[in-house]
C-alpha cells in the first residue's frame, strides 16, 4: 500500500489562505500606487504597531469562534481591567501584583461568561452582549467616568517600550505563536475545534464540552486584559471608554476575514493575523490618501460584509 505523505506546511498554508494573501497583496499594491507616503518604513512600522491590540483580541476570539461561540464583551473587559490596574497602580501596589489582579479580573469575566452560557444553555451572543453593557458600566463606575492618568515607568517600559517597533507587536506575536501551538498540537486545541458546528460529536465521545467552553471564554478574557495593558501603555492612561466600538468589532471581523467561521470548527491563527493586517492596511492606506473618515467607515464595513459573505459561501460548499 502506498502511504500518503502529509503535504508540506507551506503548501497547506497556501491552500488555506491564498484568498486573503492575494487580497492583502492587492490592497498594498493599490495604496502604494495611490500615495507616496504609504510604502515607507515609518508607515509600515506604524501598521504593524497599530495591529498589535486588535491581533491580541483576535487571538482570543479565534478560540471562541472555533468552539462555535462569540464574545462581544472583550472591549468592555479591556476598559474595565485597565481601570482596575490603574487604580491599583495609584494605590502604590507593586506593578506585578496589580497586573496579576487585573489579569484575574479579566479571566473572571470570561469565567462568568462561560458558566452562564454553559449552565443555562444560552446563546453566547446574548450573554456576552449583556456582559458588554454590565462591564462597561463597571468601568465607568470604578473610574468615576474619568480617565486615570499616569502609569508606572516599569509598566510603560515593558508594554510600550522605546524601540523601533514598540513592544506591542512582539507581545502580540508571542501570544499568537503560543495560541497556534495550543490549537494545533494539544489535546485541548483539538477539543476546542471539535465543539464547532454543533457539539454532538464531541459530547458523545466523552469530551467535557462545558469545561472546554468555559476555558475559551476565560482565554478571551485573558487576551482582553493583555490588550488593555498595551492600550494603557500607549496612552499612559486608563480610559473607561476604551474599546468602545472598533476594537471588539475588529476582533471578530479579522478572524473571519482570515477564514475562521462563525459556525466554529476552524482555528486559523494565521488567518487572524492576515485579517488584522488587511484591516490595518486599509485604514492606513485610506489615511494616506486623505480619504475622509466617513468613507473609511464605508470601506471597512464593506470588507467585513464581503468576508462574512465569503464565509457563508465556504460553509455551504
Amino acid at each position, binding site marked *: 500500500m502506498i502511504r500518503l505523505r502529509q503535504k508540506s506546511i507551506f503548501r497547506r498554508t*497556501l*491552500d488555506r489562505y*491564498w484568498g486573503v*494573501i*492575494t487580497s492583502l*497583496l*492587492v490592497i*498594498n*499594491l493599490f495604496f*502604494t*500606487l495611490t500615495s*507616496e*507616503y504609504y*510604502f*515607507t518604513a*515609518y*508607515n509600515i512600522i*506604524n501598521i504593524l*504597531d*497599530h495591529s498589535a*491590540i486588535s491581533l491580541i483580541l483576535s487571538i482570543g476570539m479565534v478560540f471562541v469562534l472555533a468552539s462555535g461561540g462569540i464574545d462581544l464583551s472583550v472591549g468592555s473587559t479591556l476598559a474595565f481591567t485597565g481601570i482596575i490596574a490603574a487604580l491599583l497602580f495609584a494605590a502604590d501596589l507593586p506593578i506585578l501584583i496589580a497586573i496579576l489582579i487585573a489579569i484575574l479580573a479579566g479571566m473572571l469575566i470570561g469565567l462568568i461568561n462561560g458558566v452562564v452560557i454553559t449552565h443555562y444553555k444560552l446563546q453566547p451572543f446574548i450573554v456576552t452582549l449583556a456582559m458588554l453593557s454590565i462591564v462597561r458600566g463597571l468601568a*465607568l463606575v470604578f*473610574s468615576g*467616568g*474619568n*480617565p486615570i*492618568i*499616569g502609569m508606572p515607568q516599569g509598566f510603560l517600559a515593558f508594554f*510600550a517600550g522605546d524601540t523601533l517597533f514598540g513592544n506591542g507587536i512582539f507581545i502580540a506575536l508571542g501570544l499568537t505563536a503560543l495560541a497556534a501551538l495550543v490549537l494545533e498540537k494539544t489535546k485541548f486545541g483539538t477539543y476546542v475545534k471539535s465543539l464547532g458546528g454543533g457539539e454532538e460529536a464531541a459530547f458523545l465521545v466523552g469530551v467535557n464540552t462545558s469545561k472546554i467552553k468555559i476555558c475559551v471564554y476565560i482565554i478571551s478574557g485573558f487576551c482582553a486584559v493583555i490588550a488593555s495593558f498595551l*492600550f494603557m501603555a*500607549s*496612552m*499612559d*492612561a486608563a*480610559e*473607561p*471608554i*476604551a*474599546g*468602545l*466600538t*472598533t*476594537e471588539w468589532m475588529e476582533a471578530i471581523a479579522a478572524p473571519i476575514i482570515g477564514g475562521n467561521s462563525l459556525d466554529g470548527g476552524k482555528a486559523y491563527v494565521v488567518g487572524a493575523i492576515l485579517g488584522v493586517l488587511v484591516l490595518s492596511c486599509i*485604514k*492606513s492606506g485610506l*489615511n*494616506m490618501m*486623505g480619504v*475622509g*473618515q*466617513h468613507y*473609511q*467607515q464605508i470601506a471597512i464595513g464593506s470588507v467585513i460584509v464581503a468576508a462574512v459573505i465569503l464565509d457563508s459561501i465556504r460553509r455551504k460548499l
Partner: protein
Amino acid sequence: MKRLSVILIVALVFATLVPCVVCANGEQEAEVEEIVSPRGGQISKFNPEFGKIPVPSKKWRIGVMEKSLINDFWLDVKNGYEDAAKDYGVEVEIFAAPTEGDLRAQANTLEDMLGKQYDILCVSPITDTNLLAPLAKATKMGIPIINSIDAHITEEDQKKHNIEIEAFITVDFKENTRMSVRYFAEQLGDEGGKVIHIMGIPGGRCAEERRDGYLEEIEKHGQLENIGVYNGDWDRKKAMDVAADVLQANPDLKAISAANDNMALGAYQAVKNAGKEGEVLIAGVDSVPDAITSITNGGIDATTAFFQYGLAYLSVEAAILYLEDQFDDKPKTVFGPQEIWHSGNVESKVEEYREMYVGLQKME
C-alpha cells in the same frame, strides 16, 4: 496550481511596480507654486494680539486632527480651517476619529499622519491623554504642534512625555455653561426653580468642564435648584429620552442646561412632547445653525457661542506665524471670546456674525 499562478503573478506585478513607484516619488517636486494669499498681510481676523499675518513664504502643509466630523460643531471647525487656508494660501488636510468615543483610532490616525510629513499639526484630542504617545513622537520628529480647541495637554504631561506644544487655542468650557446658568437666573428672577444639566460623553474634558461650570455657577444662585446632572453622550436622542424622564418625574422643571446644541434640541423635543412648550428654558452650547433657527422660531431659548469657526481660523493664523518665525512675541494661550445668544439678541447677533459662519450664511 491555478491559485499558485495567480499569487505569483500578483507578486510579480507588485515586485516590478514598487520600484517604479518609489522612483517616481523619489523625485521631489521642486515646483515653486505661486502663493495666492488674499488675506496675507492683514491683521488677524479674530485676535488683534496676533498682529499682522504675513503672506506665507511657501505653501505650508498643515495637518489637522479634529475630534470627529459627525457634529455641526466640528463641521464649523472644519470650515474655519479650510477658509483660513484659502484666505492665506496654505494647505490643510483634515482628519478625525470616526466617533467621539474612539480613542485608539484618533491616536493611530495621528500616527499615520506623522508619516505624511506635515509642517505643523493642529490637534484636538478626544481626552487629555489619548494622543500623548503620537504627540511625543511628533516632537521627536521635530514636527511642531498646536493644541486646538477642547482637550488640553497639561504642562505636567508635556514634561513627562517630552511634548512641545507651541500654542493653545482654546475655550473656557466652564464659562460656556456658567453663562447658561446666569441666563436662567436672569430670566427666572427671584422665583427661580428646578434646573438640570445634561452632559456630554463622560471622560472627555469638554463634557466634564461644562458640567463643572454649571455646578459652580448654580451654587451662586440660591433661587435655582439643581436637581441633577444626566448623561446625554452629546446625542440628540439620548438627551431627548433623558429629558422626557426628568419631566415625567418633575413636571415643575423650569430650565434645562445642555452641554451642546444637539442635546438642547433633543431636550426641546421632549418638552414639546410633554406639552410644556414655553414653560421650560433650554440653553445649549455651540451656536450651530440648527440651534439658531430654533431660537428664532421659539424653540430652545439660548446657546453659548464661542466661535469654534474662529478658533480654527486662529489656529491656522498661529501656525503661519510660527512657521514664519514671527510667533515668539505672541501670546501662547488664546481663549476664544464667547457670548450668550438668546431669543432677545439672536437676530442682531446673526447679522453681526453672518460673514464668519458659513452655517449662518446658509440660513436666510
